[in-house]
């Protein structure tokens, strides 16, 4: 069950923050963009496993000095959220930049303020572009949740691993787990195609 919780929270937090970051990356000025750019490039440049371990150990160390003790699950969710934020930020930035400038100018001609322009004109068009790569990110988050088993979060893969240690039918257990993940991810992909159809009239 923990797999679902971790993935769910990571996707939700990641998407929300990611869209915000992407917006800043696309429209911010040089000084505001810089820390976000650094963050996104750094997280996307290191392997997921290294991110998970780093956040688990470094954040755990820092926070334990202050007195807050993070559970394994919480560190895992923070790590996965950080990763998905970076990815969604890139996706959003790409989508927003690909909308022709004429749209913004048309909005200004009508007399809309920038936030109204964003909500009514830019965002709906960006959504259609964001959805396919976002489904990809959702799939990667599900696959990433298996990595949390390496920091001891009691999730699907770790449970299978423990069962294998008490049994001789290793292959069967792992293939069964593999099948479950395969089905879950296939469902996510189908859902994504459904969203795509709805988003493009």
């Amino acid at each position, binding site marked *: 069950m923990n797999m679902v919780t971790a993935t769910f929270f990571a996707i939700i937090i990641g998407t929300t923050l990611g869209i915000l970051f992407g917006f800043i990356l696309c429209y911010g000025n040089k000084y505001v963009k810089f820390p976000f750019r650094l963050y996104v490039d750094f997280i996307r440049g290191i392997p997921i496993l*290294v991110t998970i*371990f780093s956040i688990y150990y470094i954040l755990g160390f820092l926070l334990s000095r202050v007195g807050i003790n993070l559970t394994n699950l919480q560190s895992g969710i923070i790590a996965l959220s950080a990763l998905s934020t970076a990815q969604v930020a890139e996706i959003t930035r790409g989508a927003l930049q690909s909308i022709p400038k004429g749209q913004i100018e048309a909005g200004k001609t009508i007399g809309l303020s920038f936030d109204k322009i964003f909500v009514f004109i830019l965002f709906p068009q960006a959504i259609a572009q964001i959805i396919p790569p976002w489904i990809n990110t959702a799939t990667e988050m599900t*696959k*990433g949740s298996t990595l949390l088993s390496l920091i001891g979060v009691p999730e699907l893969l770790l449970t299978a691993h423990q069962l294998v240690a008490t049994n001789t039918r290793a292959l069967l257990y792992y293939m069964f787990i593999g099948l479950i993940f395969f089905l879950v991810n296939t469902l996510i992909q189908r859902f994504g195609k459904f969203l795509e159809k709805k988003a493009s009239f």
Partner: protein
Amino acid sequence: MVYYFSFRVIQNNIGDMLNGLGLGLFIAVISLFFGIILGLIAAFAAVSSNRALNNIATWYTAFFRNTPLLVLIFIVYFGLPSVGIMMGRNVSFIFTLSFYAGAYMTEVFRAGLQAIPKGIIEAGQAIGLSRFNIRRYIQLPIMFRYVLPSMSNYLISLFKDTSLAASITVPELTYFARKLNVETFRVFEAWLTAAFLYVVTCYLIAYLLRKLERKLRIE
């Protein structure tokens, strides 16, 4: 809050970490090589007119892309010995990663093959080339130009996936970082060095591959 940052620790272990980095690069390149072979076969199977081949290729791609890499690694390394197929750590990881890479390469090659205009293939048939020769002299060179950017992107991604080898104790960079962390409790030095090495290597690979692309783009 006091933390004594110590460079000594990094100095003592940098040799091991660089060895691990080299092994990771090596594994990535070899897996990409086998993955390209598998991907080519599967891509031609996916666009062929044979229904059965189409289905096999599609299932292969879907299975290896939707299943987490860690699960695949465990299946191959822990599961296969119970049916008699035994491989060492490094070999089993390269085996798994090759199939994984092959699934992604199939998608890339399939898109490349479908982007070739039909007219060129018909011209080849008009000259009288056999189907195999058409593939070899017409489709492959054109497709190669198309897929090079995606492939270079994918090599970087594959290199980052090699860090999962640490979970079956292949002596890779992540494995040494974790070992350093657990032995000396110096969290910052261990993980920041590892992260720094990964980022620098990824940037280097990206830079070199971009130069290669630019060179090959001039016809």
